[in-house]
C-alpha cells in the first residue's frame, strides 16, 4: 500500500497537474491562433468593460433572462458549480497535504461544510443524469460521452464521500478518490469540460460584440 500511495500522491499527481495546466495553456493558445487566423477583427472590438459586464450578469443567479426562464435548472446549476469548485479547493485534507509538501497552506472549510457541499455536487450530478434520461428534448442531443463526462466529474466526489466516512474498503477508496480526481483534472482541458476555461471567454467575446458593435445586451 505504501508503494501505491507513494505513486498516486507523487508522480501521478505531478503528471495530472502538469497535463491540467499545460493542457489549459495549450487550449488557450490554440484558440487565440484560430481567432487570429479566421476572425482577427474580433480583437478590434474586445472591450474589458463589456466583457466584465456580461460575465457579471451570467455569474449572478437569475442575472439573465435565460436564468430566469429556468429557475430549477438555474438553482441546481449554480449550487453544483459553486460546490464543485469550492469544496475541493478549500478542503482541509487537501490544504494539509499541500502544506506538508510545499511548506505553506491556505484557510480551509470545516469538514462538515465540505461534506454537505459534496452531497450537493452528488445530488446535482444525479439531477443532470435524470434530466438527460427523462426529458426527450435533452435525450435527443445526448450521446454516450455526456454520461461518461458526468461520471468523470461525479467520481471524485462519490469516492471522497465514501472514503471520508470510512464506509468500506477505506484504503482502496482513498486510492480510487485520488486517481479519479486526477482523471477529472486531465479531462478538463481535453474534453468539453474545457468550458471551465472557455465559458468566460465566450461571454467576454459575446458581451463585447453586443456592447460595442450591436449596442445591445446579451443577457
Amino acid at each position, binding site marked *: 500500500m505504501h508503494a501505491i500511495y507513494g505513486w498516486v500522491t507523487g508522480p501521478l499527481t505531478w503528471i495530472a497537474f502538469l497535463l491540467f495546466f499545460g493542457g489549459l495553456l495549450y487550449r488557450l493558445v490554440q484558440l487565440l491562433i484560430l481567432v487570429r487566423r479566421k476572425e482577427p477583427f474580433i480583437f478590434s472590438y474586445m472591450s474589458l468593460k463589456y466583457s466584465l459586464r456580461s460575465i457579471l450578469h451570467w455569474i449572478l443567479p437569475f442575472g439573465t433572462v435565460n436564468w430566469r426562464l429556468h429557475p430549477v435548472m438555474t438553482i441546481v446549476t449554480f449550487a453544483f458549480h459553486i460546490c464543485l469548485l469550492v469544496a475541493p479547493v478549500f478542503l482541509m485534507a487537501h490544504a494539509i497535504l499541500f502544506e506538508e509538501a510545499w511548506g505553506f497552506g491556505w484557510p480551509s472549510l*470545516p469538514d462538515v461544510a465540505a461534506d454537505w457541499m459534496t452531497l450537493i455536487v452528488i445530488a446535482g450530478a444525479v439531477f443532470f443524469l435524470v434530466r438527460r434520461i427523462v426529458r426527450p428534448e435533452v435525450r435527443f442531443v445526448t450521446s454516450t460521452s455526456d454520461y461518461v463526462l458526468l461520471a468523470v466529474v461525479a467520481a471524485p466526489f462519490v469516492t471522497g464521500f465514501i472514503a471520508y466516512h470510512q464506509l468500506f474498503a477505506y484504503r482502496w477508496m482513498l486510492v480510487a478518490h485520488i486517481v479519479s480526481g486526477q482523471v477529472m483534472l486531465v479531462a478538463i482541458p481535453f474534453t468539453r469540460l474545457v468550458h471551465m476555461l472557455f465559458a468566460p471567454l465566450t461571454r467576454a467575446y459575446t458581451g463585447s460584440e453586443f456592447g460595442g458593435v450591436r449596442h445591445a445586451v446579451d443577457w
Partner: protein
Amino acid sequence: MKRFVTVLLAVAVGWLWATAPLAQEDMETVPNDAFTSPQRPPAVFVHDAHNEAAGIDECNRCHHVYREGQLVPDESSEDYRCSDCHAETAADDGMPALMGAFHGNCKQCHLELENGPVMCGECHQRP
C-alpha cells in the same frame, strides 16, 4: 442510610477513576483535547504496543527536548504534553504548530520507514 453510603462510595470511586492520570500503557489514541474544535476522530495509537512493534527504544524520539534550537540527545520530556510547547496555531518562531507537530512526528516517520499508516483515515479511524 446504607443506600446513601453505597452511592457516596460509587461517586468517590468514579471520581478517582475519572481524574486519575491516564498512564501511557493504557493509551489507545492520542488525545485531541488540546484542539479547540477537533474535526477528526482521535488518532489510533496504542502507546506501548506501538513503540514495541516499531522498535523505538528512545522515549525522546517523540518526547524531545530542545535547548537553543538544538535537540538535546539524552533528555526527554514525557512529563509534558506536546501541546505544552506546541501551540495550536503557528507562531513565526519556526516551531511547528500542534497538528503539524503530530503529523511531522507520526506520519513523517511512517513515510520514511515505509511502514505504519500514512492515509488520514488509517490514523483517524472512525469508531
